[in-house]
């Protein structure tokens, strides 16, 4: 009984230890897995994220007028596991530290993260292709010289002809 009295008096003196949310700020630990942010300029549409997504939240599909690819991620199936960020070769998809995810039922199907990759024509044959992101070249090569840059503007068939003859 006396040990409880010591705890009781200590509790009364120290005051409440409650987090002040929602009336104030709260702490956010570093590396918290929150909502997704997608950078279309760094994406090479390898579809690795779509393959490993645990909740099946990612869809990459061609738009109806065939001018590019659109990236749709629906947060209401995302399990915030981070596998897409882990396997993306260019780190085009990242998890931010934003945890404010509560929303009303009428916004349920609008709670998405969208992106659009526009096709660029190949420099020699003109077929539309996904542009090569500079991050991909940095991952593959140590220093990127002018030859590599010229090659990166060709589609895969023209590149094969140019390199292998």
């Amino acid at each position: 009984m006396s040990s409880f009295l010591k705890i009781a008096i200590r509790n009364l003196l120290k005051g409440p230890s409650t987090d002040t949310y929602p009336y104030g700020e709260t702490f956010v630990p570093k590396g918290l897995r929150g909502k997704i942010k997608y950078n279309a300029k760094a994406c090479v549409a390898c579809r690795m994220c779509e393959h490993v997504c645990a909740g099946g939240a990612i869809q990459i599909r061609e738009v109806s007028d065939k001018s590019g690819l659109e990236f749709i991620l629906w947060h209401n199936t995302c399990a915030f596991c981070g596998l897409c960020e882990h396997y993306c070769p260019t780190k085009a998809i990242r998890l931010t530290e934003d945890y404010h995810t509560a929303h009303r039922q009428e916004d349920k199907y609008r709670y998405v993260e969208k992106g659009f990759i526009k096709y660029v024509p190949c420099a020699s044959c003109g077929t539309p292709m996904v542009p090569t992101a500079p991050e991909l070249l940095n991952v593959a090569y140590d220093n990127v010289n002018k030859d590599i840059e010229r090659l990166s503007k060709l589609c895969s068939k023209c590149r094969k002809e140019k390199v292998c003859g």
Partner: protein
Amino acid sequence: MKKLLQKIAKKSPWLYRINAGSCNGCDVELATTACIPRYDVERLGCKYCGSPKHADIVLITGPLTARVKEKVLRLYDEIPDPKVTVAIGVCPISGGVFRDSYAITGPIDNFIPVDVNVPGCPPRPQAIIDGIVEAIKIWETRL
């Protein structure tokens, strides 16, 4: 007069949890927001009540498995109006990581009218408190 009663009565919503086949991750987070002093939910006037007849805000976790579906629907009918339904975690909203399983009967809003969604696997206690605050705003208009 009715507005005055609405304003007073919205400060005491009572919470009730329904576990519709969940993995218990979201239930652990719900227990955290209620029991430990760090995320005290009694400041908002809330209280976890044991009986569905005393409930105002219903917190549902878990994908609706085929075995539990009939019981959850019967239990939902026993909760007196006015009430607000909050779906916690991604499982009740869309099936979550279990969406292709043979045991799941589908997202909960095919059977029950849901008002607030809190995605996350599991969502942070602060996000759950966000969802409860949003639900209180909706509940005030229905009192």
